[in-house]
Structures are given as structure tokens and as C-alpha cells.
């Protein structure tokens, strides 16, 4: 086991557990506003302090983790769910029109600045977590399609695939039974990285008011609320930001660690 995998997995696990726990319990109720308690610095009573409505920041971060994780996870799901089959299909029909359409389509999506398109989508269809998921998810599709295609292409020349062809299996079946299991490691690593990018994207969209809407707590939203209070109570801005950094750092370290742990040969394929 390598160190970055352990550290990354531990950091990620803290947030996953906190998010899961928040369904059952948070240190304080965040729906009742205690104005007398507002902007209290971190203390033994409120470990991370309180916000401008007197709500406990630790509880808010636990609830916000739910939003961040849910948005990023579903966005990765969209990317994998659509991107992987497209990548497999493109590799199975290498050089054909399908491959061309999928590859050029991917290039086109890559050419768009993702944040700008996310803003366009949420601007037109209205802000909210669902539209943020769609906006982030769309950009995950070509990432997984390209990765799957690249890895699958090299597998199609391997002997076990040739053997399967001789045995009479069609391309779709070979893709699912022989190619997919062999690209799974790569997909898991990339999934971790896209997950961390999704957390950052969700935070950014929520910060500008286009992601999760109140009363759904979200880390980006907490930072937006904190902006005007940063002089009075810096902890209000520092704590949610630290949560984002630690979660993203954890996922990135885990991605790096997984890459090395699952298959050292991946280092060659990395680019």
C-alpha cells in the first residue's frame, strides 16, 4: 500500500462518513436560527464556529458534503454511463464513421470552456443542483469516451481478443466481456479525478449562485454567504474552503495512489 493512497482514502472517507452521518445526526440543528449565537469563532461548543445565522458550521459542512458528493458522483456516473459505451463502440469500429463521429464530437466538447457552458446551461434552465449535475456531467462524457477508446484500441490487437473473435463472438460482446474488464482500473482512477473536479465545479457554480439553492446547504453557497463577513469573522470563509481543499486533495491523492497500486504499467499510458 502506498502512502498517498492511504492518506487520500482516509481524507475521502472522513467526508463520506460525515455526509452519510448527516442523514441521521448533526452536532446541531441547522434549521433553527439562533441570531444571538451568530459569527461565534471556533470553540469547544461549536468546533468550527457559527455562521451569520448562528448555525453551527461543522453541521453545515456535514450537510454540504452531501450536496457536493451527490452532484459530483452523479456527474461522474453520467460521464461513465455514456462515455464508456461510446469509447468502447468507437474502438470496436476503429476508423469507421462511428469512431470519427465520437472522436470529433469529443474534440468539440473539449474545445468548450466547461465553466462557461455550465453557466449557460444553468442561466437558461435555471439554477439548481440538477442543472449543475447535467452541466458537469456533459463534460465528463468525452473524458471517459477518449480514455476508454485509447485503452481499448491497444487491447483489440491482443491475443485473447483475437481468440474471442475466432470463437465467433461479435464486437459488442467482446467489448463487454473482454475489453471492459481490462480498462476498469483506468476508469476507476479517472473516475476519482473527475469526482474531485466535480466537487470543485459544484463549489464554483454554487458560489456564483448557479448551483444548489437554499435551503440545500452547499460548500460553495457557504463561501458566497461568507464573502461579506470575511472581515468580521474569517472562520466563516476559511472552514468551508478547507473542507473543499481537503476533500479534493484526498480524492487526488487517492487517484494517484490507486493508479500506482492498481497497475504500475499505467504510468506509461497516463498521457
Amino acid at each position: 500500500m502506498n502512502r498517498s493512497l492511504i492518506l487520500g482514502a482516509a481524507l475521502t472517507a472522513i467526508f463520506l462518513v460525515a455526509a452519510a452521518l448527516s442523514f441521521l445526526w448533526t452536532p446541531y440543528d441547522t434549521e433553527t436560527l439562533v441570531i444571538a449565537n451568530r459569527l461565534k469563532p471556533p470553540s469547544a461548543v461549536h468546533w468550527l464556529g457559527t455562521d451569520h445565522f448562528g448555525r453551527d458550521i461543522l453541521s453545515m459542512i456535514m450537510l454540504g458534503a452531501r450536496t457536493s458528493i451527490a452532484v459530483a458522483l452523479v456527474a461522474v456516473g453520467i460521464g461513465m454511463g455514456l462515455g464508456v459505451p461510446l469509447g468502447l463502440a468507437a474502438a470496436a469500429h476503429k476508423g469507421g464513421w462511428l469512431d470519427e463521429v465520437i472522436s470529433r464530437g469529443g474534440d468539440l466538447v473539449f474545445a468548450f470552456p466547461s465553466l462557461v457552458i455550465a453557466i449557460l446551461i444553468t442561466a437558461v434552465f435555471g439554477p439548481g443542483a440538477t442543472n449543475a449535475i447535467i452541466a458537469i456531467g456533459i463534460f465528463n462524457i468525452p473524458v471517459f469516451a477518449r480514455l476508454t477508446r485509447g485503452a481499448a484500441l491497444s487491447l483489440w490487437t491482443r491475443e485473447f481478443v483475437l481468440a474471442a473473435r475466432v470463437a465467433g463472438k461479435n464486437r459488442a460482446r467482446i467489448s463487454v466481456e473482454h475489453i471492459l474488464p481490462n480498462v476498469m482500473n483506468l476508469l476507476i482512477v479517472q473516475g476519482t479525478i473527475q469526482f474531485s473536479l466535480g466537487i470543485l465545479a459544484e463549489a464554483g457554480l454554487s458560489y456564483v449562485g448557479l448551483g444548489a439553492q437554499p435551503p440545500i446547504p452547499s460548500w460553495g453557497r457557504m463561501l458566497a454567504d461568507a464573502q461579506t463577513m470575511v472581515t468580521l469573522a474569517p472562520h466563516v470563509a476559511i472552514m468551508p474552503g478547507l473542507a473543499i481543499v481537503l476533500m479534493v486533495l484526498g480524492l487526488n491523492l487517492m487517484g494517484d495512489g490507486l493508479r500506482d497500486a492498481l497497475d504500475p504499467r499505467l504510468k506509461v499510458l497516463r498521457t
Partner: protein
Amino acid sequence: MLAYLAKRLVSLAVSLAVASLVIFLVVEVAPGDPASYMLGINARPDTVAALRAELGLDLSKPERYVAWVGGMLTGDFGTSYTYRTPVSQMVADRLWVSLPLALYALSLSTLIAFPAGLYAASRRGRMGDAAVMGATQLGVAVPNFWFAMLLVLLFAIKLGWFAAGGFPGWDEPLQAIKALTLPAIALALPQAAILARVMRSSLIDILGEDFIRTARAKGLSPGQALRRHGLRNALIPVLTIVGLQFSFLLAGAIIIEQVFFLPGLGRLIFQSITQRDLIVVESVVMLLVFAVIVVNFLVDLAYAAVDPRLRTRR
């Protein structure tokens, strides 16, 4: 090279056409009629109809698309639904903030990343390398708008060295540059982290090449071999990333402008979203996408000019 150029030009045109179509269609399906929105709920139907005609909203969708694209090609971006002023004028005013900000951030990112990557590569596997790599790992994880808030907290509020936000205009160039400094640092940090990693791995790849070994065999020190033979070769992929980062920075400026209350394209987009001034949103988004696609195209061309193998690979 000419055949490659022609192929890339066709691809550029197709990308721009598809991008414009996608943006147009996305905005088209937006609920609500701009004319009714502008005139309010008590407007008479004939007034609404007259305004619709004035704005060209009574034309069919294909006609409107052609008119919009045609207008953009000639510099006419339409008229803002809210302010009734030409969108091109609004965009031009704001571009004088966003563009310098992106260029400033790009320079900073390059200035930080090059020495950092070079240092890490030359200390590969040692403490210095680990420290730089750790810092870049952190840099990639920090959301730039949060970093921006921390910068404001430290340098504007605690130390009072910079203003916490706002932009004085270019009449006072030094003040303008000062106002853009914290936003540029905030934008540059994550990009510098990425660039330093690319720089490091590119240098490490090059250092394993035969020609470096030959240079060393000739009696050059590792540092000399790196400076005379390694650097130039390692810079090719790094410069590609620098080019691509420009578009990230231009788009990233949208959020950073919110933190610093800078009157750039980002604030224009958000104001227009709040006012449902979709023609402005549509045009600014198209402009940003255009910038990204064109920069990518230029990077591709520059890369092909330097590395002839790429011209035939596709």
C-alpha cells in the same frame, strides 16, 4: 504543412459552426419571451408585437440564427434587451478588464511554474522535488475563488496593501494593474500548479533521452546538459499547455471577477443572467468559446510547426 493547415482550418470552421448552433439552440429553448419580459406584464399585445419585430424575434429560428451569426461576423452582436445599447459596445468595455486580467494571470502562472518545475526535475526524488510536488498537489486542490478570499483577507484587510475589490479604470495604469494583482494571483495559482507538474514530467522525460546522455558523456555537468539541450526540447509540450491555459484563465476570470467586483465579462454575464438579458449571455458565451477554439487552433499550428511528425499523424 499547407495540407495540414487546410485540414485544421476546416476543422476550425466546423467547430465554430457547431458551437454557435449549440449555443443558439440552448438559448432558444429558454422559457419566456424577451419582449414581454422587457415591457412587463401590463403591456398591450400590439406593443409587445412591435418590440418583437424590432428585436427580430418574429423571424423564424433559422432566419434568426443566420442573422445572429452574420451579425457577429460583422461585429454586430445585437442590442441588449435591458439596456437597449449595442452588446458589442458592452463587451468591448468589459474586455478591457477581463483580457488584461487573463494575460496577467498567464504571465504569473508561467513565471511561477517554470522555475518550480525546473527545480523539481533537477532534484528528482529528493526533498526539494517532494516539496514542490506537495505544493502543486495542494495548488490543484484549492478553489481559486476561495484562495482569492484568503488573499483579500490577508493583503487587503489585514495588511492594507491592496484594495479589496473594484477597478479604477485604465486612466491610471499603475492603479489598474494594482487592482488586478490579487485577482491575477488567485487565478494563476492553480494553473501554475498544473503547469509546474507538466514542466517537471516533460523535463524528466527529456533527461532520459540519448542526446542528454551524449551531452553528459561529452563532459557537460547535469545542469549544463539540462540548460543547453534539455530545456528547449522540454518546452514544446509545456508551451502547448500554456496556450490552453489562456482559455481556462479567460473563463476562470468569470468567477474571480465576482470576488473582486471587477467590471469584466464575468460580471456582465451574471448581471445579464439576473436580468434575463439572454442576447448578452449568448454573445458573451459565443465570444469566449470563439476565443478558446481559436487559441486551441493556434496552439495546434504552433505545435505542428515545431514538430513535423504531428502534421502527418492525424
